[in-house]
């Protein structure tokens, strides 16, 4: 049952991913991307990670994609002229197929040893997914977390400085 559901959603995800690159109008591409993010959120739910799913929808679908849509609308990007870019299609197709086979090969080659880390599906069930992420972020990975937030702050200040004509 879960497997059928997985394949169904995977099909939708790949389909909308395909739409992103094939659509003529940038707005439709953006909508395809939103749909892909939704499918990813469903995968997170299926992996027992509801917090990640909610954050995925909230941050990517709810904020970032809205901004992208906003920019597309403001710049009024029309439908792209129907140009056919054919050069390099064959080589990139071969390269992607090779990468796919590589990944498949390494996945098949790997062996499950049965060793378990601290966090198993049992601890996730008993402690709670959100609590575990919170603890990890604010104890073990506090420094990277803070550095990431400083990076974001720098990016915001930089954007304001670049965009503002005179202070």
């Amino acid at each position: 049952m879960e497997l059928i559901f997985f394949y169904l959603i995977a099909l939708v995800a790949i389909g909308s991913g395909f739409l992103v690159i094939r659509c003529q109008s940038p707005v439709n591409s953006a909508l395809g991307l939103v749909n892909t993010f939704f499918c990813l959120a469903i995968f997170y739910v299926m992996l027992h990670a509801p917090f990640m799913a909610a954050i995925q929808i909230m941050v990517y679908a709810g904020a970032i994609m809205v901004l992208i849509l906003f920019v597309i609308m403001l710049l009024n990007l029309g439908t792209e002229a129907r140009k056919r870019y054919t050069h390099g299609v064959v080589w990139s197709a071969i390269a992607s197929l090779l990468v796919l086979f590589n990944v498949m090969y390494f996945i098949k080659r790997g062996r499950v040893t049965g060793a378990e880390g601290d966090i198993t599906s049992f601890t996730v069930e008993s402690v709670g997914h959100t609590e575990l992420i919170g603890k990890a972020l604010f104890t073990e990975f506090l420094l990277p977390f803070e550095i990431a937030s400083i990076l974001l702050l720098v990016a915001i200040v930089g954007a304001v400085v670049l965009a503002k004509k005179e202070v």
Partner: protein
Amino acid sequence: MTPEMLSLSNSPGLFVGIMLVKILVVFGVTMLIVAYATWCERKVIGHMQTRLGPMRTGWHGLLQPIADGIKLFFKEDLVPSESTKVPFLLAPMMILVPALITVAVIPFGPDLSVGGFLIPQQITDLNVGVLYILAFAGLGIYGIVLAGWASNSKYSLLGGVRASAQMISYELAAGVSIIAVFMLAETLSLREIVALQQQDLWGICSFVPNWYIFTQPLAFCLFIVTGLAEINRTPFDMPEAESELVSGFCTEYSSMKYALFFMAEYANMIVIAAIAATLFLGGWSAPLNIGIFTMIPGFVWLLLKIFSMMFFFMWLRATFPRVRYDQLMRMGWKVLLPLALANVVITGLVVVIVQ
């Protein structure tokens, strides 16, 4: 035999059946409230402006929503020839669906024990319930933005652009204002948040429940203001400002599609009222821990709270003029967000000191 929680594993048939019943009932009640909220709003605003409001259809205009529905249903469905068809058709649905989906996590009563099973009076209890609400509340914006863009009309586009900027700005403050509640509750599940609010106020006052509005009055006010801005209600209805944008993002819509926009507006209003009631006003629990009050079933209290919040929203609409766009942005970023952040910091400090 101690009753256990009904789930898909211990009784699949009953579970699916009860789930369907719950979904249908909640959906039906929400749609009924949506229909009569329109009547109620016209009546309330009419009386506040010393008019009578709708009087002709039925007793005091009680059949007005049905008449409006039939009228809109039989109107010609115009699609502008220059519009982008698919987003134009999708937009009204994309604004209504997130509003209706959110109702799924609102608890409306204590667990019922039927046939040896505990049945929660809530469609589903997510352990990230509040985040789910925030996530889907943020999605309603797509409907507005797409409606504005796809109509291919200047008024609509301006409305859509205004809406997206406004909703992104206020979503942030709304999310941050709710964080203070999580910090006190230490859970994201709405069911547990309601249960926590049934305890005694600050552990001392035995008959007043521990509603978070008493501990977090600032967060409550911030949530109401940002919530109003997020659902584009007056005084924040810039995206559909009649005096400058005709009707904003829904200018080009007609017939049932236009009705969907209106239904979405009222559904959003119900959702914001329900979230405010659940997070700050004790959800379905009685306002005083007195025998007579606790005997009244939970959904009555929840509906009463939702209705009083909605009355408050209508009252605001009749009272306040629309804010200017720069005022709106300045208030969102320079007043509401810093206040919400300060509230989080102070709440954190107090929680650490008390513990």
